[in-house]
């Protein structure tokens, strides 16, 4: 009998294209099977625009108990990957259960190599292995650096729901979250501080070691030169709402 030990996903649900310090990266996350997975690739682009994958690696979710069901995603205004986890596990059903049996949580236990066939899979075994339902159902953000390292965090304060995707508005504070299902809701998260132009400028200058330049106008021009046409307007408007009107 053929036993397949390698899981293959044909279910990529979102791919981002990220430019970091002049380099091109792409992050793809896979919705199924469970556990979900995400892979980061470094790309090269020739002068005809053709993209080639230079190298690929798995994104590390070990600090967050793995990745549940990543659905759609988006790219933040500050050029990071914003992923999702949908169909959050039903914590009430989990904690009130006597036997979990077949199902998505049992499949997910493969993240720790703890898949257990049969009817004796229980919530106690799931928790002993590391599975807690309140760890899943969040947006997550991956920051990619030009040296091909990445850091990922789940955005726990955004709260658990079936995130189809999260999308950051140009104010870099408002994050709409859509909820996939029947009898669900529509929400947004308002961050207490904005991310965006300030962070973008600081990151750019930190990486280039020219933070000593104090002149904000020079900083702005510098940042704009790094920006494509379509984001220039947005960058300027974030500095002052009137700026964009004169473009």
């Amino acid at each position, binding site marked *: 009998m053929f036993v397949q030990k390698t899981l293959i996903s044909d279910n990529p649900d979102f791919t981002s294209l990220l430019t970091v310090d002049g380099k091109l990266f792409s992050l793809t996350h896979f919705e199924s099977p469970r556990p979900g997975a995400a892979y980061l690739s470094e790309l090269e682009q020739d002068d005809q625009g053709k993209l080639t994958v230079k190298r690929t690696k798995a994104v590390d979710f070990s600090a967050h108990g793995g990745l549940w069901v990543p659905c759609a995603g988006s790219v933040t205004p500050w050029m990071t990957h914003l992923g999702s986890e949908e169909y959050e596990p039903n914590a*009430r059903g*989990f904690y009130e259960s006597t036997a979990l049996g077949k199902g998505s949580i049992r499949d997910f236990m493969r993240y720790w190599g703890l898949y257990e066939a049969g009817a004796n899979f229980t919530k106690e075994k799931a928790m002993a292995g590391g599975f807690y339902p309140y760890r899943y159902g969040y947006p997550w953000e991956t920051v990619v650096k030009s040296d091909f390292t990445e850091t990922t965090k789940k955005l726990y*304060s955004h709260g658990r729901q079936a995130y189809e995707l999260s999308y950051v*508005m140009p*104010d870099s504070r408002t994050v709409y979250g859509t909820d996939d299902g029947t009898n669900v*809701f529509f929400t947004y998260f308002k961050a207490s501080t904005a991310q965006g132009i300030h962070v973008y400028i600081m990151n750019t200058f930190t990486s280039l070691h020219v933070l000593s330049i104090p002149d904000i106008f020079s900083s702005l021009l510098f940042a704009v030169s790094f920006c494509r046409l379509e984001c220039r307007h947005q960058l300027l408007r974030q500095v002052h709402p009137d700026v964009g009107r004169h473009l």
Partner: protein
Amino acid sequence: MSAGINYCAKYTQTSAATSEAKDWTATIEWIAMPTATEADVQAAIETTTFADLFDTQPCLSNLSGAGAGGVCPTDGFKSVNTGGYGCECLKVKAGKEALAGTLEKRRYAGASYSMHMHPIPLTHSHTEHPDTSAAMYTLQWYMSLTVHWL
């Protein structure tokens, strides 16, 4: 992105109760929700169960058919029907509002803000907000959302 407040949309229907979905209109009010900090959520993940957040009771009747309502045995419990879990009678435990509003965000919203028993099948597949405020926000993403009011 890590610290902030969640808001949920409260729809109040302005079209006739029997209107077709294509004619459906509503006003939206955004309601601030109790939101736990990232640190509080992380501290709760392995120590908090559903029963730590909500008291529960069985529903006296289940949702079936237009206008049918879930009824809870005791005042103070709210019947909700969210996320495909069917009728649940829930009461948030005192002092657990922020964690319940974050870990059980949808159930909390249903138990706290739903005002009317009024089934409204509504699907957003494409939403655009062209320049409706000081900032020009355009939302053009795949959005699968069905609102079924309790």
